[in-house]
């Protein structure tokens, strides 16, 4: 089943994985390093990939492991210093609004303050509306765990923003 070669994978998924790792690390240079490691690992492990999950899920779980290892090994801590590349929109069915710098920072800070599976869960879901089934494959948690915790985290996030920013407009 591995007729698909690495170049195709690279072209197809580079951006998606880049975004995920970028939000995890918040550092473009680290992100590039990690991405390199990820695709090296993919090349090495291509044979052992059995197709238990989709290719994409497999790639993301490698990306996740690599990021965590990298951060631990280099004693990195994601700091929301440069957030100029990140935009966040929030909508509650009636209107959509683009967050201001400070609010973006607060959201990112909230995400970074979560412990590991929760952090990745938030990022994976908020970045591209991945299905919970897919995310549960990446994180190795059950579908229900992802679903329930995602909504809980979202509530917590709204609470935190309310506290920090005096956010009311969002909950009408």
């Amino acid at each position, binding site marked *: 089943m591995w007729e698909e070669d690495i170049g195709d994978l690279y072209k197809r998924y*580079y*951006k998606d994985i*880049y*975004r995920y790792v*970028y*939000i995890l690390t918040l*550092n*473009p*240079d680290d992100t*590039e390093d990690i991405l390199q490691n990820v695709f090296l690992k993919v090349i090495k492990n291509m044979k052992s990939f059995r197709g238990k999950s989709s290719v994409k899920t497999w790639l993301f779980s490698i990306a996740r492991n690599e990021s965590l290892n990298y951060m631990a090994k280099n004693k990195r801590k994601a700091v929301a210093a440069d957030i100029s*590349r*990140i*935009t*966040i*929109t*929030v*909508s*509650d*069915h009636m209107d959509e609004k683009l967050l201001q710098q400070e609010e973006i920072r607060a*959201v990112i800070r909230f995400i970074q303050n979560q412990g590991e599976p929760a952090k990745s869960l938030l*990022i994976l879901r*908020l*970045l591209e*509306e991945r299905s919970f089934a897919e995310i549960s494959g990446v994180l190795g948690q059950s579908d229900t765990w992802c*679903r*329930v915790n*995602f*909504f*809980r985290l*979202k*509530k917590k*996030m*709204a*609470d935190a923003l309310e506290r920090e920013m005096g956010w009311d407009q*969002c*909950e*009408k």
Partner: protein
Amino acid sequence: MERKECIIIEELLPLYIENITTEQAGSLIAEHLKTCKSCNETYQKMKIEVRITTGSENAKPRKQTLWYLNSLKIWYLLCPAIALVCNVFQLSSILKLYGLILAVISVVCILSDFFSCGTWWDMENLIFQQKAREEVKRKRGIFYTRPILWALPAILVLLVLVLPQILNHICTYMI
């Protein structure tokens, strides 16, 4: 009474939002949300849709960084190579001129290092270098960004060129 119910409702809210409760449970929850303010607030918060996007224009390695590092590498090779070529072909006048140029380059670079800027006479180039240096700094550490790095091969070649003369002087003094 109300509290206990709220705890259970809150537990079920994710399923309710995803529309995977049974009809009966759904209507029960909807009813509760109408009457209970705090649960309704929780519901609204859970329902907020948040989308994060990141610009991907920088998803590739930057040209500037590559340019800086590559030209540094070329300079390191080229600088001694020219001296070697001149030496082999016995072009002593060109070699002298080259030594002069290298001396100027290294003085400029060392001075630039003190004032921490590269080519101060060319504003555009300066900004360009500044940007490239910042990238390199993040990736390779501060040493690579110093202009003195550009002077190193020049100084080395100069030393080799001047060393015989220095030795000559010392010998004549000794005698």
